[in-house]
């Protein structure tokens, strides 16, 4: 004990060599590597079982188009979960936004107003979530559960439980799905743009940095002078905006607005975020991981459909993947600390 008592002594043996800090970061990368490996494995399974159908451009396009809608929601969900919360209402908000944007009144103003309407409805519902949670001090699970039920009900009411078609004069909405650039429909580019914007927001701005702080240690964030309540409110608003964008994509893909859209999307989005390595308790996570998690889910669905397998088995496979992913992450976390 006493021989290390120079003024700035580090306790002996407590100063790891610089190399070890690099290996800690390497493990973070390895986690993504694991996800990429899983995706490659699934692709090989696809190539072996369906050599004629899997690797076709039309199949890959349909995988991406399917991933795009939930993918946009997943980006917002990643922010909310890193910020220490959860949002169960994403599917219902998306449905509500799609219904609101396809009412006769909204459609009469044209496609631009329809898109704005979807985003505003999403933002408003998200802001209400955020308000209840940060200023009403409600538990996120409960507040967003209430929103999920209520927004779903409102969507049913507004649409009279009928599927509302996007009218022919607003076919600019459908063009997002039908117009292709370099072989990919526009909505895939919108998905990519949202992911890129999310990545930049999370990793290159004060907002992103504060999100990690608020989720990782809200008390420390508060004492560091961050307005935790306002930030929480913004996080749920952001998630709502993502739901609004997703509503535009689903209108483009299905040419409809309906209260049945987005059923169980919240579970897929949360699962994708968790598989991607984001801590459910907040403070740690990545956008890339979430998107890889989502692609794994989507490709599995695709493989089951191509092989004509039971959708029930598909759900069992998804459940197993969630458990496996979390167990693997726990192991890599333990070895890094």
């Amino acid at each position, binding site marked *: *004990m006493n021989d290390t008592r*120079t*003024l*700035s*002594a580090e306790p002996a043996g407590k100063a790891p060599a610089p190399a070890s800090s690099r290996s800690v970061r390497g493990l973070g990368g390895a986690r993504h590597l694991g996800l990429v490996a899983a995706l490659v494995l699934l692709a090989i399974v696809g190539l072996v079982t369906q050599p004629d159908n899997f690797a076709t451009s039309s199949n890959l396009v349909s995988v991406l188009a399917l991933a795009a809608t939930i993918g946009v929601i997943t980006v917002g969900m990643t922010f909310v979960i890193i910020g220490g919360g959860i949002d169960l209402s994403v599917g219902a908000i998306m449905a509500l936004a799609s219904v609101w944007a396809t009412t006769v009144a909204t459609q009469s103003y044209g496609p631009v107003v329809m898109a704005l309407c979807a985003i505003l409805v999403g933002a408003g519902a998200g802001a209400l979530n955020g308000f209840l949670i940060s200023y009403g001090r409600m538990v996120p699970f409960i507040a967003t559960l209430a929103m999920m039920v209520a927004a779903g009900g409102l969507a049913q009411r507004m649409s009279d439980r009928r599927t509302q078609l996007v009218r022919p004069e607003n076919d600019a909405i459908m063009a997002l799905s039908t117009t292709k650039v370099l072989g990919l429909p526009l909505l895939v580019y919108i998905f990519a743009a949202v992911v890129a914007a999310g990545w930049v927001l999370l990793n290159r701005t*004060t907002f992103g940095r504060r999100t*990690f702080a608020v989720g*990782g240690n809200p008390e420390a964030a508060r004492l*560091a*002078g961050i307005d935790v309540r306002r930030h929480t409110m913004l996080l749920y608003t952001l998630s709502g905006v993502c739901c609004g964008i997703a509503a535009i994509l689903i209108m483009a893909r299905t040419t409809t607005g309906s209260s049945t859209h987005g059923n169980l999307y919240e579970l897929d989005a949360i699962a994708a975020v968790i598989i991607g390595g984001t801590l459910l308790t907040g403070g740690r996570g990545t956008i890339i991981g979430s998107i890889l998690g989502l692609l794994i889910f989507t490709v599995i669905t695709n493989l089951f459909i191509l092989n004509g397998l039971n959708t029930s088995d598909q759900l069992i496979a998804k459940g197993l993947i969630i458990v496996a992913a979390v167990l693997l992450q726990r192991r890599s976390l333990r070895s890094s600390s």
Partner: protein
Amino acid sequence: MQDMRDPLLVMRGIVKQFPGVRALDGVDLEVRAGEVHCLLGQNGAGKSTLIKTLAGAHQPDEGTITFAGQEVRLTGPIAAIKLGISTIYQELDLVDGLSVADNIFLGHEKAAFGFTRTGDTNRAAAELLGRLGHGEIAPTTEVGTLPPAGKQVVSMARALSHDTRLIVMDEPSAALAHDEVDNLFRIVRELTAAGVAVVYISHRLEEIREIGDRITVLKDGRTVAVGLPARETPTREIISLMTGRDMENVFPERPAPGSHDGRPEVLRVEGLTVPGVVTDVSFSVREGEIVGLAGLVGSGRSEILEAVYGARGCSGRIELNGAPVRGISSAVRLGIGLAPEERKAQALLMDQSVAGNITLSGLGLYSRLGWLDRKRELADAKAQIDELDLRPADPSRPIRTLSGGNQQKAVLARWLVNRRKLLLLDEPTRGVDVGARADLYAVIRRLADEGIGVLLVSSELPEVLGLADRVLVIREGRAVHQSDARDLDEHRVLDMIMEGSAL
């Protein structure tokens, strides 16, 4: 007559090492059946670690424990309870949502084939409560609805529900009013009359005089006195046993007394009152001055700090350079920084890098329209790391891999990247080992010399007296004394905060 009995519990040479800290460094304790044995020591002396060892919550690295004549190994809380050792912790470990009876028998429920026998449980609980003189507490009451004194009784009933031969009480009177303390003492006397041994921990010397039989004093993880008579040992002797460290020269040199007199006041506090905790406290901190708040845990010193930072509702006037402080964001904007008491829980983002922690509250400095300039951020973090000699000097290393002293430097650095006018330091050297402390002291003094005002709270009196220019003594929420630190010594201050006789 008591002296003839064999001791019930003997602990010899107990050593407990935590990462970076040797919490127990050879402790001896000897407790006889039927006595109240008082454990004394300053904060950090090792009392909590010792009773946790006794409760089976910590396993000692070295040393032997003998209970009722047999050497035992307390491998866990259950092992301790089976032997007949019960512990009543300072933070009562009760489940608020369960009934009184359910709490008492938690873990050893009265049940048949897994079904709890509610009638039996309630009857047995009522009997225990009656034995403690509190038959008026209904066994079916939800614990969360009881006042602190009631919870205390439930904790004691739980201890008695086991076949208990030794009860450890960690500051049992801390949450109690005066007449409730009398009842506590009555219960303790009944227990000892029945042959149960009690290990009693308290900061209040007058209580120890009243209830205690013998005293063991701990200091810096070692036993410095064993089995002193509780009633006859003079206060002075006890205090000097608790403090009597050979002062090493770890504190930086201070400017001459009165050298801050002409300088402007950075902080002015007038009539500060936090309901129930702090009453009418006024003081000021001048540029370049370190002001220390001395007092016991719970005396209101941390609350004063939090109030100044705007993190706690209060009345009175708090001004920084003449501008009123309203809330945390205004405190930060005006130039106040806080290094809170619980470094890990209140200050650090353990998953983030050193740089991310340093720049957390100065993010606005590196951003334009919310866009972070990471190069400048990293450069500033690096500059602070060099300035404070933070090791290892790698801004991208995860902060969790750093030692306590270096983590604390990162917290200080957080407030140096965006120049502060006033720093509030709450227990800045907690969990920091001795060598690294001197280093932190030097940093704090250098910051003051650069013109920053510093308000310091510490449980360690030598730290307050050795580092501060001026000291405020806080007792039960009031400032009972204020003077230059050099005019005070530990004995005088301890007298003031423990006995309340302000000389």
